[in-house]
């Protein structure tokens, strides 16, 4: 499955890019699986996701928990807790 990954705020800074297109292995079922897979891609990813509990995620522009399935995902975003307002 081909998806667009988006990174914001310090997640973006740590990874060193704002977006990328990736082909997800069929073995990845949930957002948590995807995070684990990304961490194995290199030290920048590993560092950005070092504390996965502080990472928030969205699938197709809707907030989801890390237990959410990846089914139907076209755009997946990772970011710190929001601080607007």
């Amino acid at each position: 499955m081909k998806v667009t990954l988006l990174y914001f705020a310090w997640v973006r800074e740590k990874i060193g890019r704002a977006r990328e297109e990736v082909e997800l292995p069929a073995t990845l079922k949930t957002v948590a699986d995807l995070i684990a897979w990304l961490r194995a891609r290199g030290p920048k990813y590993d560092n950005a996701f070092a504390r996965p509990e502080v990472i928030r995620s969205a699938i197709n522009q809707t907030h989801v928990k890390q237990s959410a399935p990846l089914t139907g995902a076209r755009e997946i975003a990772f970011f710190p807790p929001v601080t607007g307002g």
Partner: protein
Amino acid sequence: MTVRVQTAPFDLSAEVANLTGGRTDIGAIVTFTGTVRDTSHGQKLASMTLEHYPGMTEAELTRVEADANVRWPLQASLIIHRVGTLLPGEGIVLVVTASPHRQAAFDAASFLMDYLKTRAPFWKKELALDGSGDWVDARESDDVALARWETSTST
């Protein structure tokens, strides 16, 4: 119901006039303006830069505003959130609510701010006068503020 994300400053009177001008059925208008403070954790700030998630931001703000309109009898509502680099004293966010009843206008504006702060994908980075830059941490108190609206959720 209107939602806008913009880099330009907003004018309070102009926005309220746009929203309510010429109407004679409104009884109460509440506005909330959030502004950049010059100090953060004891450090003097030079500026604050707001990043957001285009597309999702507008979607979340629209959801939040629709939710407020279900909960309270609003006659008009507006959310403007700025992005980009802002100086101390500048407005970051403007929320306006109009209702026949004052408490509805107050509660809806407060609700919009609480939801916006915990749901809308904005991130603030502070640039201190000494040149250091830091992403603002989310505050637990914002989650607490949000929780009080859950008790009155109808299902």
